[in-house]
């Protein structure tokens, strides 16, 4: 059935990380050529919208930008994020049935604390959009399915303690690709255990394998979680022609994926085969979202024989399914093993910013809570000198009184001498403070 699909297309033809960087001016040029030549925007059920600009308030619902937004955020980020918010508005206001934000640069490697750009990402578009939707439209249960080839470690970090967001990442095995994380045992914090799901796939996984993981693992879990909204964090770098990954997915496969997943909103993430893959994948995704016939989508160099799945991948993925359901079905019992009963749980993370060349050490403490996602404090120390030492306090959305009281105490008592900046993010009251 045909659907009304909104398209926010912002190729940012005047932005590049550097002239030969994969994230460069012409990344969406050939996609735009293909979309224009196919005449997609002439179909009555496909409508293009101009992106709005994201504001500081939008960003601060998710990120702690160090030292501030002005220092690390470029206009292109404000437009890319703004485009996803436009997509959200069009869907939430029922102007369209679903929307695709075809914007750049990407965002899913950006975490809560942002000292700079990592994995080509500065601002996490999907996360900012989720909090915008919750703030403006009051939607609680949201699922993000990250279909980029790289593990969505930024989104995972942001939603680690959020029981109302189901984050599923399907990606190339972290032992073989940046950022090196995203294993099945990464399942979320003590108050949101099980709502983070990682599905690493071996290099060389092709159409059959992808669709198996989607149909046999992702869809049943989604059906059980029953989200009010599904977001596809839609990377396109699983394609067989992508220059920086090792998978074998196809344009036709991406169209089937979106037809099956039926995301309310899709947001472009990675994908760097700008001539051989992106034009065809994007045409396929748009047609699939619009409920149109995509059966004639095919790359000029598509090779059916190359799509025959080796036996070791088939058995690996079967095992992945077993493990995933074993964990998903027993997540309560498993939580008590992973997080023994304690008032607070602390973890330390070491974070690399490959694009900006920064190393950060984080100590994160979460208050164990059965009533909400739990208040969190983050002690962050980046190797950028005095200005890299910050302390952040997070009051989650739908926060309970006890967590709120504890969080406010942490902010008030934080020692200004120890840090260059101390932040408080209060999602329920939509406040962001710094002292």
């Amino acid at each position, binding site marked *: 059935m045909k659907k009304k699909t909104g398209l926010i*297309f*912002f*190729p*940012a*033809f*005047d*932005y590049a990380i550097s*002239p*030969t960087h994969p994230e*460069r*001016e*012409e990344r969406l*040029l*050939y996609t*735009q*050529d*293909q979309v*224009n*030549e*196919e*005449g*997609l*925007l*002439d*179909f009555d059920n496909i409508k*293009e*919208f*101009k*992106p709005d*600009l994201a504001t500081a308030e939008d960003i601060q619902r998710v990120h702690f930008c160090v030292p501030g937004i002005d220092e690390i955020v470029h*206009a*292109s980020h404000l*437009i890319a994020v703004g485009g996803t918010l436009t997509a959200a508005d069009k869907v939430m206001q029922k102007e369209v049935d679903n929307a695709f934000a075809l914007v750049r640069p990407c965002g899913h490697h950006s975490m809560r604390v942002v000292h700079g750009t990592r994995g080509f990402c500065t601002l996490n578009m999907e996360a900012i959009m989720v909090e915008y939707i919750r703030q403006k439209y009051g939607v609680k249960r949201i699922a993000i399915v990250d279909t980029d080839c790289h593990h969505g470690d930024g989104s995972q970090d942001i939603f680690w303690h959020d029981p109302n967001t189901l984050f599923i990442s399907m990606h190339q095995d972290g032992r073989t690709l940046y950022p090196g994380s995203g294993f099945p045992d990464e399942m979320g914090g003590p108050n949101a255990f099980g709502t983070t799901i990682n599905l690493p796939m071996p290099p060389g996984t092709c159409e059959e394998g992808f669709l198996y993981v989607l149909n046999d693992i992702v869809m049943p879990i989604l059906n059980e979680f029953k989200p009010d909204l599904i977001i596809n964090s839609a990377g396109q770098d699983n394609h067989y022609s992508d*220059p920086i990954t090792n998978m074998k997915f196809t344009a036709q496969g991406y169209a089937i994926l979106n037809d099956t997943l039926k995301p309310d909103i899709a947001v472009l993430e990675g994908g760097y085969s700008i*001539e051989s893959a992106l*034009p*065809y994948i994007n*045409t396929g995704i748009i*047609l699939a979202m619009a409920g*149109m*016939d*995509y*059966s*004639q*989508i*095919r*790359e*000029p160099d598509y090779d059916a024989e190359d799509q025959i799945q080796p036996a070791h991948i088939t058995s690996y993925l079967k095992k992945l399914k077993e493990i995933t359901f074993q964990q998903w079905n027993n997540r309560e019992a498993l939580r008590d093993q992973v997080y023994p009963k304690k008032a607070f749980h602390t973890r330390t993370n070491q974070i690399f910013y490959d694009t900006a060349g920064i190393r950060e050490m984080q100590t994160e403490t979460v208050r164990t809570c059965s009533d909400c996602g739990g208040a969190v404090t983050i002690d962050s120390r980046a190797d950028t000198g005095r200005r890299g030492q910050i302390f952040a306090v997070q009051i989650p959305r739908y926060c309970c009184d006890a967590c709120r009281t504890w969080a406010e105490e942490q902010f008030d008592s934080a020692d200004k001498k120890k840090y260059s900046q101390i932040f408080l993010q209060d999602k329920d009251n939509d406040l962001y403070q710094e002292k």
Partner: protein
Amino acid sequence: MILGIDVGGTHTDSVLMQNRKIIRKSKVMTDKSDILKSVLLATQSVAEPADIKKLRRIVLSTTISTNAVAQNKLDPVGMIVMSGPGVSHQDLPLSDRTTFVSGYMNHRGMEAEEIDEDEINALKKQFADKGIEHIGVVGKFSTRSPIHELKVQTLLNGQAKHVTVGHQLSGALNFPRRISTAYLNEAIWSLHSDLVDQLSAYMQELGVNVPLYILKADGGTIDVEQSRNYPVQTILSGPAATIMGVLPFVSSDKDSVSIDVGGTTTDIALFADGAPLLEPKGVQIEEHKTLIRGLLTHSIALGGDSHVRVVDNRIVIGPERKGSAMGFDGPVPTPTDAMIFLGLADIGHKGKAAKAMESIATEMGQTPSEVARAIMDQACETIAAKVRSMIQEVNSKPVYTIHELLEGKKIAPQEIIVVGGPAPYLAKQVGELLSMPAIVPENSDVINASGAAMARTTVELNLMADTEERVLTIAEEGLQSKIPQNFKLDDLIAVGKERLEQIARVAGAQEADLEIEVADCQTFNVIRDSATTGKNFRVRLQIKPGLTKHVSQ
């Protein structure tokens, strides 16, 4: 002197102009069975034999091809389409009348699949058997490489009366629109060709040797003989003629809006610093979305003769026209009756107009004056609202660079030009609603003829240079040539300007009007394995619609 003629469905208007002033004007009935006769009559009614000798140019605008499309009086066309993978065939226009054949180009104009000559030869025979005389050949990305379309055209040689190849009609990317445009071009080819023959007989009859132009949808002119192969460009030239007629009254240093209030509809157009805005993708006629460059107009079904009635105790104006106003012995109340009743318009029969208002007043339980005022207010507010929404729509058009998004020009009209029959009676009120001064030009009854008379020749050209492939492509020309690796953007612009000047001269442009503008220009890197291996330049050049500088006497 310039002669401008507008051949409409009912009337043929003509103007004789000198120094951009109308010396004489006339309206005669159009004889649809004999256009030559109508044009001659229209000529003679404004120009004495002595004037005809002084003519420097003649420009004609006509709705003949537009009407043929609207009434679906079209010749059968055999469509041969090379689509390759992509949007499903069933979702392409005219797919039920199309033969899809193998062969396609990719987005950079590289061959992805060869054409099959046997397939084309078989089709050629099939078309011959069916007696199909018009053929359209369209390939996906044919503006990036015309090779397949040209090859098929060659294979069809000698088969049909005429073959249209898609890339020659427009250099823009849009495959479905290219299909529709090529189809329409062939479907009206013979009709238009007959018109060109008649017009050449007309020129012989006049016995003068001056350029004869025909108006296109973009408000530009083309030499009549040159128009023979591109009849589709003359479709929808009616609204363009009006806009060109308004142009002399539009300020060149600010944005403006024009409102053409007719009997059934009101057409709105916008001007940026004196230049009319173009449809971004091409004009649409009936269900056909085309690549034909045309002036941007938004229409509402509201005019002087719109049917006014009461529905649920509310006044409703339009969308139908049932006939003329009751003040002109028409069947139902209209906005014109309200204007007559209120004393705004001293036309028609005041008593009959009063009857119209009384009939509405009785239904509404109000006085005729209240009702007439309400009809005027509603008509003016509807027009004003449409102007506001059109400006908003134009300003929210997507852009693709950070620079344009943050600093792009916004249209902000500061004056209104109102034309059409009811214009003098509602211009002031519409102006007040939009907080802009409203101008009503003189002679707006023959504005299409004067607009055509003053229009200059327009041309557009799309070029691309790929220094990795070392190929330069001129889309509309179907030309590809070798370039050196160090070819620059300026080189491409220079090549384009030279070629555009030649094309413009052939199309009939006068030297004074050869003002070439770089409408778009983009540069991209081509990268292989993290190294820059070439540049991809894209340039669109145009002579945009405007008033001719040729002939001032």
